[in-house]
């Protein structure tokens, strides 16, 4: 390396040439419109998934703690027993009493 070369790449010149080269390398380059479309489609799909996940599922176990919502009933498919807890036993007893009432 000669002293001339060192002088040629003084700070200011190096700064200038670096900035202009990097800016030139991306000048006029734009992402295609499909990236935006794809982004919004993916975000919409993600939003729908999160809504589905956050929907409250009313189960018998939940009812035991929170009480029976007005709109819910034992016949509602979501209210079917999921485990053998106290609410399930109540549900079974009610079914048995119904049978007995029907017989008797």
């Amino acid at each position, binding site marked *: 390396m000669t002293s001339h070369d060192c002088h040629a790449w003084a700070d200011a010149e190096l700064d200038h040439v670096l900035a202009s*080269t990097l800016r030139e390398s*991306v000048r006029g380059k734009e992402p295609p419109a499909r990236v935006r479309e794809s982004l919004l489609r993916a975000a919409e799909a993600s939003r729908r998934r999160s809504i589905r996940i956050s929907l409250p599922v009313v189960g018998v176990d939940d009812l035991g703690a929170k009480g029976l919502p007005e709109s819910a009933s034992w016949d509602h498919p979501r209210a079917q027993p999921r485990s053998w807890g106290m609410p399930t036993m109540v549900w079974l007893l009610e079914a048995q009493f119904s049978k007995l009432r029907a017989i008797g």
Partner: protein
Amino acid sequence: MPVVHEDGQLVARIREGDLSALGALYDKYRLQVFHTALAVTRDRQAAEDILQEAFLKVHSYANRIDLGVPLAPWLYRVTVNLSYTWATRQSKWRTSLETLIDRLVAPPRAAPEGRFEVRDLQARIQRAVDALPFNQRVVIILHYLSDLSLKEIAYILDCPVGTAKSRLHYGREALRRALSTSVEPQATPALEVVYDFT
């Protein structure tokens, strides 16, 4: 009541499920993100993927974004992290491919600088930037392309300002050396021929 930045207003709308706000943020920042990713990766397809992924993260993490500040620094940070992930994967592939080629191509060969005549200054600079270690390359790009201060770069890279400053310094020195030596290419000794078919 905390002041909400105009970007924060859009992020608040995204939280409520308004995707047109995400589109508005994309329109505002897409070039900054795309150009940064393109400058770091030098791969158009990768830059497009990073662009989409960065804004998907805005959507996914909208609840965690500070509404009182501009979104740009956060977006730059995400862009750099995604670019780093891409570069790491790419370098593994490239290294294994180069190793394979090295084993197959036995004849002695000179270093690239010795083989090709350097014609264009910008091409030389671009190659020199591309050859920098990732951490220095990112600082150089954020400083010279995106015109960011050392404080902003330090936030984006999640490092002390002094670290960003030293990376910029070492990056510039490496570029200065690379450009100076490329003016007067030095003869590179031929590599030893190794036949290794094991």
